[in-house]
């Protein structure tokens, strides 16, 4: 009995699962309209962009060396604007504009990785600088000379563009079934079943040891920032399709939430420690809580506060339980 309890407390995944069940029951009992098929399927669409950014942050933080990516929201905005401007203003076809937007975001991530690996500037500074730089680029792209010098959103897309973010398969949002879930599975495979995953954990937990065992630390780090850029660009594409508009500040509010989810999911800020499963569970919990608070009519700013209490409270509870076990 005591052994089982120990395992529950010591394993972040199981702890999060218990937390999930607790909040799910709480919301199902006390919030009207929460436990309906429509709501449960509908709310999953809000997890997609945040989830992609949290996964991007997960890989970057796992790579260690003070790894963090503050530019995720800016890359998301930039990719959204590239796609929006190419389709809405330049009249380019979707088949061309979307790959270009994704490539732009991926390149921005690659640039982060190169700057970090080749200059030895700490990731926090590089991505702080590129956070400013990329969001500035997004604003500049958004300027339409025909309407003066101010950045403008783009919203004249053809109907086929909305398919990705608004179509449903058996009531489940298309982007959940055909983007988020496949991406999670691919990343799960990448991290747990490939040499790249082993190298990533190696570099994150002990850089020197990894280098001596012949791993190119530089290549691993550049890969994770590039991957982060791609995932952020994907999020930018999806949100543009979902809300039917490309805005230059569309990703700016996601940064801290993405880091929160990664850290709540058990990713150690020091690198080398954390799992996709934990991050996905954290994502599910946060999405569910947001949704529950939304349909109970709680103001967004209060939602942030409650989220803060839950973040600190959950980790504190986990630590207290671990400490008690040791005694």
């Amino acid at each position, binding site marked *: 009995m005591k052994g089982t309890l120990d395992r529950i407390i010591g394993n972040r995944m199981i702890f999060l699962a218990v937390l999930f069940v607790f909040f799910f029951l709480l919301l199902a009992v006390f919030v009207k309209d929460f436990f309906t098929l429509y709501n449960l399927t509908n709310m999953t669409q809000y997890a997609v962009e945040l989830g992609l950014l949290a996964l991007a942050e997960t890989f970057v933080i796992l790579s260690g060396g*003070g790894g963090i990516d*503050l530019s995720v929201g800016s890359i998301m905005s930039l990719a959204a604007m590239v796609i929006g401007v190419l389709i809405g203003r330049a009249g380019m076809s979707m088949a061309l504009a979307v790959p270009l937007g994704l490539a732009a975001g991926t390149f921005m991530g690659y640039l982060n990785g190169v*700057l970090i690996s080749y*200059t*030895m*500037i*700490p990731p*926090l*500074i*590089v991505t*702080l*600088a*590129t*956070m*400013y*730089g*990329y*969001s*500035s*680029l997004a*604003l*500049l792209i958004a*300027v339409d000379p025909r309407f003066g*010098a101010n*950045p403008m959103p783009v919203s004249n897309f053809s109907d086929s563009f909305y398919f990705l973010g608004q179509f449903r398969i058996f009531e489940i949002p298309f982007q959940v079934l055909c983007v988020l879930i496949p991406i999670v599975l691919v990343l799960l495979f990448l991290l747990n079943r490939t040499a790249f995953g082993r190298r990533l954990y190696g570099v994150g937990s002990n850089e020197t040891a990894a280098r001596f065992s012949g791993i190119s630390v530089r290549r691993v780090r550049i890969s994770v920032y590039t991957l982060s850029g791609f995932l952020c660009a994907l999020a930018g594409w999806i949100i543009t399709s979902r809300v039917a508009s490309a805005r230059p500040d569309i990703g700016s509010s996601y940064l*801290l939430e993405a*880091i*929160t989810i990664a*850290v*709540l999911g058990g990713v*150690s*800020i020091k690198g080398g420690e954390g799992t996709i499963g934990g991050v996905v569970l954290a994502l599910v919990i946060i999405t569910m809580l947001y949704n529950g608070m939304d349909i109970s009519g709680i*103001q967004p*700013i*209060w939602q*942030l*506060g*409650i*989220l*803060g*209490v839950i*973040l*600190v409270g959950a*980790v*504190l509870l986990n*630590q*207290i339980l671990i*400490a008690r076990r040791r005694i």
Partner: protein
Amino acid sequence: MKTTVRRVLQMREVTILGVIIVLAVVLSLTTKNFLSTSNISNTLLGLSGIAIVSIGMTLVIVTGGIDVSVGSALGIASVVAGKLLMAHASAPVIVVAALAAGFAVGMLNGVIISYGNIPPIIVTLGTMNIIRALLFGVLGGRWVSGVPRTITPLGLGRFLSLPIPFWIALVLIAFFSVFLATRSQGRAVYAMGNNADAARVSGVNLNRTNLFVYSLTGALAGISGLIYVARTGIVQTNSGTGFELEVIAAVVLGGTSILGGKGTLVGSLLGAALLGLIQNGMVLLNIPALSEGLVTGGLIIVAVLIDIVRARGARP
């Protein structure tokens, strides 16, 4: 003697100072207002708030931590000060109350971080959001302007033609630089950042050190909030949003290692000065607001890059 000179020249502070001087020379040659008294004093006023909080943030980062709640602490102090101003409280009461509000936020961070043994980024992300929500609860999304001018001199006053907030920053930086160099609590901060286990074994009280650095940061954010209200006369729910990144940028630009154990207060002041100068230069050169991020980001990278290249060159 020669090695001392060389060591001084190799310091990060000297690099940043060099970048500042080059930028200042370029700006004074290309614009006609840069060297005017009003421009210089406005620039110094603008960077004072960041410089004051950077003292605490430097210590926090030196211990290996981070505090992203300083913007919210600034917000709560400015709301407390604003509410008391509207109630026509006296200046000393307002100052003490705003300081106490900031201090309380820092204390809360410190207690949870040390006794809960939780990573600082999680704790301060949490308190940042919680306090912002509380501020919304108090102000209800409205904003207060045109408060009585009781504490205005604190924000807009001058002494020897320099703004009072800048003097406050200088005095605090001087005081805490000496404190760090001479007092055992000051040495403990660096010891903890270099090797927490070794520090604990040699008698450093890690919990007390955490409480010290986070409470100090909170209190300094309180002073900044006070100056903010005194300067602008405006209190809003979102006062200080984004402030944390500016402070962290100044500290890290100034040479404090994000991995802990290394950094000076003078370096952080220079980092804040460089950021202030960049922003001022963009206004003077009429660089469009949309490109500001591009220029700021680029210059941050260039400044740090110069330092890294120099450090590499210096290595035997």
